[in-house]
């Protein structure tokens, strides 16, 4: 039954925010969950602090690109990108934004939490943690945590896990 899952996810941010790493984490989690996955990401010129977006398509797809109005989940590492990439979302899509200010989306101040964890750059994992605890993603928090454990650089592992846990805990979820 798991195999029939289809989910389209975007990760939106600016170069340097770890959009590519977040994409990898989600892609690896899909494979771990036994699902096919295709992603598309930005490299090169686009990455020098410019706006970037990754597409992640989980399940039986052939193309790595998401059509406008088709994404089920949006992870926005900056609220500035809402105007740029929101058009990719379905009307019922769940949008998670890294911001302290509320709006017509779910949000948490991932940058401040990441700073507390030790480095601004792990805001990506805070946001993934925050999204996964709402049960809106294709996999469990536990599976995602295993993936982070597996693919993090040894030096970064503790920091990454800490950031992920902070995201999981945003809504007061109990943490192991």
């Amino acid at each position, binding site marked *: 039954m798991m195999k029939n899952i289809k989910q389209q996810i975007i990760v939106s941010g600016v170069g340097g925010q770890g959009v590519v790493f977040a*994409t990898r984490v989600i892609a690896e989690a899909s494979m771990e969950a036994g699902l096919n996955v295709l*992603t598309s990401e930005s490299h090169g*010129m686009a990455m*020098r602090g*410019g*706006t970037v977006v990754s597409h992640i398509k989980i399940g039986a797809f052939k193309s790595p690109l998401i059509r406008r109005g088709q994404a089920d989940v949006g992870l926005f590492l900056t609220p500035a990108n809402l105007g740029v990439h929101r058009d990719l979302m379905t009307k019922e899509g769940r949008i998670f934004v890294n911001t302290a200010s509320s709006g017509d989306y779910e949000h948490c101040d991932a940058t401040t939490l990441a700073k507390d964890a030790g480095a*601004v750059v792990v805001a990506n994992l805070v946001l993934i943690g925050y999204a996964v605890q709402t049960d809106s993603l294709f996999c469990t928090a536990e599976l995602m945590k295993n993936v982070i454990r597996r693919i993090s650089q040894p030096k970064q592992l503790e920091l990454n896990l800490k950031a992920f846990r902070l995201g999981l805990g945003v809504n007061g979820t109990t943490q192991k």
Partner: protein
Amino acid sequence: MKDERILMGNEAMGRGLVECGCEFFSAYPGTPSSEILAASVGFAKETNAKMHLEWSVNEKVAYEGALASSYTGKRSAVAMKQVGLNVAADPFMRSAYLGVKGGFVLVVADDPGPHSSQTEQDSRFFAQFAKIPVLDPSSPAESKAMVQTAFDLSEKYEIPVMLRPTTRVCHARQNVSCDEPVFMERTPRFEKDPGRWIATPQFIPELHRKLNEKIDDISKLDDFRPRCFKGDGSRKATCIIASGVAFACTYDLLEDMGLLGQIDLFQVTLPYPLQRNFIEQIRSGYDHILIVEETYPVIEAQLLDPRVQGRQSGRIPNRGELTPDVIQGALEKFLDLPAGEAPPAAAKGKRPALCAGCPHRAAYYAIKTTFPRGIFPSDIGCYTLGMNFGAIDTCHCMGACISQGTGFYFAYAGQEDPPAIVVSIGDSTFFHAGIPGLINAVFQKAKFILVILDNATTAMTGNQPTPQVGITADGTPGKPVLIPDILKGCGVEFIRECDPYDMDDFSAHLRDADRYCRSVEGGIAVVISKHPCLLDRSIRDKQPVFEVEVTEDCTGCEECLNEFECPALLLDKAEGRVVIDENTCVGCGVCVSVCPMGAITRK
């Protein structure tokens, strides 16, 4: 156990080369192709495969090296971006005539859009121009499988085979199965054959005849007859022909629109030469034919049929990337369907900029302010972003800026008080194609300032080492080739080296250089702007940090924002002044020299 991994398209092709027993693989980095060679380095280490892997100085050099390796019977490969093949065009065109021995695969990554290139040219046309076969993968997994197909085809017909992925294959990730490499370890055997390997004009007609024969034979292979996803006949005599990622997008779209299984859909994997029987099948079996391909009408042009709709006929836009949204519009028109709801137009994103603390920014600001009337030819790399704040005037193709400097010099020579010509080029670009232009400039007695932005790396494409760094692709030491030695060898007599972070000193060198250029005995004056790229975190950790602050004296004039464009300087609109973004600032301290009010100070 099945070894399945999440691989980027470039990693998948890099893996494919290792698995196929490729023994020589050379490349020059260029988006979107850059990660292929690095992936092969990693997989060769992991599997103990014996391969010569090199970051060559440029694509022509990479091509010629791999070609000679193939002459000895070894499987060989070369990778580049599409415009890299322009640089390698000379050996490429002739290699089709002379052919190869060991399987020879050239991976040429196209960039429809383009996202990170100076053209969106279609390398499949280049393959057709050269008369060699070209494979067009639609996904990372397929790109890996096609490496094997390409080697087999190349070896069977002794012909170079092009594998042409696009950005959306190169930079897509997918779960891909990995296999154990086949170790060929062929003993090199170069068989002398002057009529072939020297091939003076008298031998060319015969080689050309053989080439035509090979292409003709390949066009008859049933293996490359496009795969058909059959329709149920409800749409009579209608078919869609697609290749590459455009096929993948079309397939997903048809499924989404509930049309999959109603229309015959063909996937072309070998766009040139288009399979002979397939051409006949389409011409005789269909009246409504849509071709979806990137980026030029290669398949369309081979079908030569007025009923065909595509890029040439205007049904599909004749430029740009075929995103699912673009294909959707074309499908709706082709199938007479009502147009889908148009989503609201999206806002434009933030443009890329040089990183905080980037040494190029410091050098550019000094050049701009020292020569307000100057002409600034520049080149390809991160430093092209200098255009954001008016620090460069041209960017054409790798190495062009130096020859352009010569052109500008002679155009203005004899004018009263000519503008300063200040050419800027990165270290890797200088090695790639700048040196012949420099020799020419010196020899022609041109006079201009050449600033070599030496950040000790190829930054834009992911920090590949340059010849000066002296580290080869697999991390082992090579023999460093030093830029000052090259400059001297090219006959340059004015050479200065300076860290641009010291802007006063750097500007003083620029003024000296200008005086030299304008003197009777002057010539080319080179100023090497020397400071390593900060993308390497260890470099950043080693350099001193100056904490800076913006004082009450800031008037909000925005000089630092518009003329210097550091991402760590932000405008606080409410306060009407500039603030420092502590999360971004690396403490280079250069902005202190920029503020006309002296309002940026060290803490």
